[in-house]
């Protein structure tokens, strides 16, 4: 395929084991591109190189880390229009939401760039005389980031930015239906002064590359956003290896509208909460719980 978009593994852009087509959900005649699917062999390579790169990154000076993160954030914000348009083209959200998301993703990187310099530990005197205690944080190692399609750039960024800021290597498996945003963010990260293999993109199906990733003993932590059933499977795999785990999954968020509330605010808040992002947000209001005294007026 002429328009094949590749995975980024151990510092190289590489083709994979097959590919998927990415189409615009607003216009199915619009093919955005074809995206390489990482093989399990490639995943093994990623895990080895990430481990070496992480050690180098952990020993890298704070200012170099901060600069890399600032550069990523600033470029995302500067290119929010262009990359937001691409995001909307593959995810379907209105352009304003796509651009806003990319800008917000940039803010996650600049925020965590600053956190690089705020890593202070604690210290204490031992209960035993003449002994000091030093408490400090260290990176967890290699982090698997498994991100969803509904906020393909922002959710990935709020995981990748702190992972890098705190000295970890990242293996990113984005949702397979929003790969263009993943490649775009990876291109920006790949241009920074990072050890080869520190940051890796492995596109592919959750049941294939995702499953291998979460079962790997070479992964030290997994940050996942997605569905409850997938999360349950990840948890089982992670617990078997005692892999550190963080997951954000389903919701059934409720908005309570009381009879003493401002009805204009209630309607605006309800509509924004229920239908922003086409309802495809984990924070969407899918239950509007309305006091009977204002129910009929609210519904109208």
């Amino acid at each position: 395929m002429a328009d094949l978009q590749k995975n980024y593994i151990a510092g190289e852009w590489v083709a994979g084991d097959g590919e998927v087509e990415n189409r615009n959900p607003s216009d199915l005649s619009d093919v955005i591109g074809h995206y390489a699917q990482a093989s399990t062999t490639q995943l093994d390579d990623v895990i080895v190189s990430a481990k070496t790169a992480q050690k180098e990154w952990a020993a890298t000076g704070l200012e170099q880390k901060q600069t890399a993160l600032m550069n990523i954030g600033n470029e995302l914000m500067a290119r929010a229009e262009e990359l937001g348009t691409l995001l909307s083209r593959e995810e379907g959200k209105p352009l304003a939401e796509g651009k806003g998301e990319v800008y917000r993703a940039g803010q996650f990187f600049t925020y965590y760039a600053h956190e690089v310099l705020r890593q202070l530990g604690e210290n204490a005197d031992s209960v035993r005389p003449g002994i000091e205690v030093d408490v400090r944080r260290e990176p967890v190692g290699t982090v698997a980031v498994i991100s969803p399609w509904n906020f393909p750039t922002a959710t990935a960024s709020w995981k990748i930015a702190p992972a890098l800021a705190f000295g970890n290597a990242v293996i990113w498996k984005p949702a397979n239906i929003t790969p263009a945003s993943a490649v775009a963010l990876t291109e920006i990260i790949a241009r920074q002064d990072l050890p080869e293999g520190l940051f890796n993109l492995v596109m592919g199906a959750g049941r294939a590359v995702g499953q291998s990733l979460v079962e790997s003993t070479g992964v030290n932590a997994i940050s996942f956003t997605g569905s409850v059933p997938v999360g349950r499977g990840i948890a089982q795999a992670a617990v078997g290896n005692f892999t550190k785990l963080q997951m954000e999954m389903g919701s059934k968020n409720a908005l309570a509208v009381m009879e003493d509330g401002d009805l204009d605010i209630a309607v605006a808040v309800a509509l924004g909460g229920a239908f922003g992002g086409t309802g495809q947000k984990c924070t969407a209001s899918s239950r509007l719980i309305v006091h009977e005294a204002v129910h009929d007026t609210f519904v109208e």
Partner: protein
Amino acid sequence: MGPVVSQQQLDENMAYVDLGKSEGAELACGGERLEMGTDGYYMSPGVFLGTTNDKRINREEMFAPLTSVIKVGSYDEALATVNDTEFGLTSGIVTRDLARATHFRRNAETGVVTVNLPTAGTDYHVPFGGRGQSSYGPREQGTYAKEFYTTVKTAYIASGAPK
């Protein structure tokens, strides 16, 4: 509002529209497949009325532009209904009563609470996450993220006396 993301999502959403109706809810508006200028996964946002919190459309995450209006008779019933779910990510209240707003903020069983604001829309410098089946493990975002991305080392040092 844009289209939904895929044919599978659209099919699931339409199945939820049918389920809601079969459970006795009134589809007040929307919830229909839309034909637009281009061929895409378009549907109109839908609102269910006359439904109760025990129905499947009010218990399962649909991830769709569909919402239900559930009528309650009091603040206490509203709070109980908000909390009657396996999930616990966000919740909100619209009120001008400080006592209710405070009580809700302290008793809603969710990781995020909003007062006179949508349940969606969060900042990047403060923690984000939920309870129940919504989240597992340390919070994301803000400085809380370091709980997940770092591990703590406690070092004991006996330096001895200088010679």
